[in-house]
């Protein structure tokens, strides 16, 4: 019983250390566009959620994108190179992962879209 306790304590200590060290180094703030505007934080990457506006500019065969992400009142320009999820289009909510540059443009290294786990596109209202 004592040995069981010691083994548990050792594993618990290791897991605790791993969780602590890993989450300290790699957690990111999850913000809306207005929260980003209000706090204007910091160093490190952040994830910013907002709705894609109707001004998507593609260049380089669609691999380079600029678009405005907006929530309620605040908006920001996002610059991103890479492929975007299929459902990416004006009006959907995306989460841009990256940082706000000195030029006021948000440089994203990833753009995630909410995946439709529902079959339907929109709920039916009659």
């Amino acid at each position, binding site marked *: 019983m004592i040995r069981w306790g010691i083994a548990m304590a050792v594993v618990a200590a290791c897991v605790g250390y*791993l969780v602590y060290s890993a989450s300290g180094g790699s957690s990111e703030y999850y913000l809306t566009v207005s929260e980003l505007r209000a706090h204007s934080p910091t160093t490190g990457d952040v994830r910013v959620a907002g709705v894609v506006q109707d001004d998507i500019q593609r260049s380089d065969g*669609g691999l380079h994108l600029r678009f405005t992400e907006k929530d309620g009142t605040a908006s920001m320009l996002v610059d991103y190179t890479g492929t975007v999820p299929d459902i990416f289009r004006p009006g959907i909510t995306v989460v841009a992962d990256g940082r706000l540059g000195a030029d006021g443009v948000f440089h994203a290294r990833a753009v*995630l879209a909410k995946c*439709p786990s529902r*079959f339907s596109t929109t709920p039916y209202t*009659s």
Partner: protein
Amino acid sequence: MSVALLDHPVYIVTLAFLGSGALLAGLVLAAFSALLSFWAGYAENGVMIQVGRRAFYATAAMILAAGVLLETALLTHDFSLAYVVEHSDLSTPIALVAAAFYGGQEGSLLYWALILGILGSASLLASARIGLRLAAYAAGIMAAILTFFLVVLVLVASPFDVLQITPPDGLGLNPVLRDGGMLIHPPVVLAGFASFAIPFSFAAAALLAGRSDAAWIAHTRRFALVAWGLQSAGLVLGMWWAYHVLGWGGYWGWDPVENVAFMPWLATTAYLHSSQVQERRGRLRGWNFGLVMLAFLLVVFGTFIVRSGIVPSVHTFAVSAIGPWFFGFLGVCLLFSVGLLAFRAGDLKSHAEPAPAVSREGAFTLQNLLLIGVIVVVFWGTMLPLVSGMLGQQRVVGPTYYERAAGPLFVALLALMAAGPLVPWRHAGAPLWRSLRWPAGAFAFLLAALLVAGVRSLPALLGLSLALAVAATVVYEYARAVGRWRLAGGGWSRALTLVVRRRRHYGAYLAHLGLAVLVLGLAASHFWQQEKDVTLLPGEQVSVAGYTLTYAGVQNRELADHSEFVAAMSLGGQTLEPARATYAGLGGQSLTHVAISSSPIADVYVVLAGTNGDGSASFRIFVNPLVSWIWAGGAIIILGVLLGNAGERRVAVAPVAARVRSPVGAS
């Protein structure tokens, strides 16, 4: 049914009424079965136990009837039902219309209840030997769980709600989901989720009945293995689907939806191992109950998380009224489980003498602790947004967190998987060190080879080498079996007898081998994936990781509901055709068709990012080494589960002391 009937409004209304009626009847029967089974079990009234049990079968029949009615409504395009309108349309292929049964919130709950009803009935039919009272309590608990689902289905999320005006067509299916994967991944995952309730019910029933001996384990283990097999298949199929359809070159993103499916799998993996310690040595009794209950609680917790939308996820499930219901259900299940364990704590003390640290028991114990550690890591990562959001600004963690925190635990688990099966029960002696030569040799061989090849990343070195060591241990076990078979005189019938007699043993090792193959695929594709973004004119070439692709040109095709650009890329003798479709009817949503050239060594994975006016096209190209090993490993694991679970022989629940010391490698 005739077509004339379909146009008749009375029929259509009747279908919805019949469905609602079946659910309501199911609810009454389930509640009746729960109450009666508990009372009859307590009173040990054999007749009433039978009645309670039959009420459970009748509940399952009612749910099945409701399921058939919903499927009929979908297949006949009965757009008077809101569910049919919201989840299908006339242009959707018929197989996907059928799949809409479990594609939406309400239908998936009905599907869940259906699986629980069917598996629950099977488990009760097979429970003749475990004692009347225990079986009655188990029926009562399963009926109580079904009662919860049916209350939700009747009151909050009915698939049989009727629209006031019947529209001419439905809203259809998002194109991302218009894929064959939709036909197999969701039903397997949902069935896996549903099946965890069976081991939970029997464990809780054993505690209620005060039967903490190993009798319940023999029964529970089988259904735990069913749940584990379904969940393994569901996880691998999910990865397969994401990889082939979503076009980001990966298969696992540590999203909350993936995490909550992974955690019950981890808890059940722990249980399948620790239950052997109880069967063989009579120890870890309370721990085993705890693990079975934990797996079920994690399933309910996961359902609550993904259906309530309280943590940010790439997946959005319909945020609906069922969140609070599942939260309440989670609370009740948690209180019930903890209360039951506390109530029986006195009976759960182990009477067997403790084993030395280096023994099979010791290895299983350490493995269990490490698996719980992984659950803690994943749980914390999933819940961090919620916890940090309560304390201040919301924070999230990405894959880096999981790799750093869970990675070392996975390495330790692999090392245990390589050595553990060779460690004998109770006492390790000289034979252990001799047999460890095999995995140690395989480990050293691959480590040296990788070092010579210039690999310097420690996680890659350890992950791949240890996976090979795991495989070596399994091969060694099988080689020993072949040796015994030769010694016994050989012959096919004898080989068959040998395998069949110890199928649990060989099934388990087959699952180990599958996992080793899967880990090799995961590690190689994770550490050595190569990626290139490129824009090419027709005739131009690009080289990625030694693969040369030539862009031939792009074609535009106009089809019924969408238009698509199809690019042609030649790779060696074959032509890859990545495409991008645009659905005008769905707000111009586009859909990528990834082109994959798969071989055992590497997949060449081409995504068409876009096309330009001058005939050039942009691509994102991945080279993913050994990805096909992941799918092969998954298939081997399922074979192992099938072998290990096929008509298991009666497990003798002999007193521990009567057992003689077992030889190395026996299980």
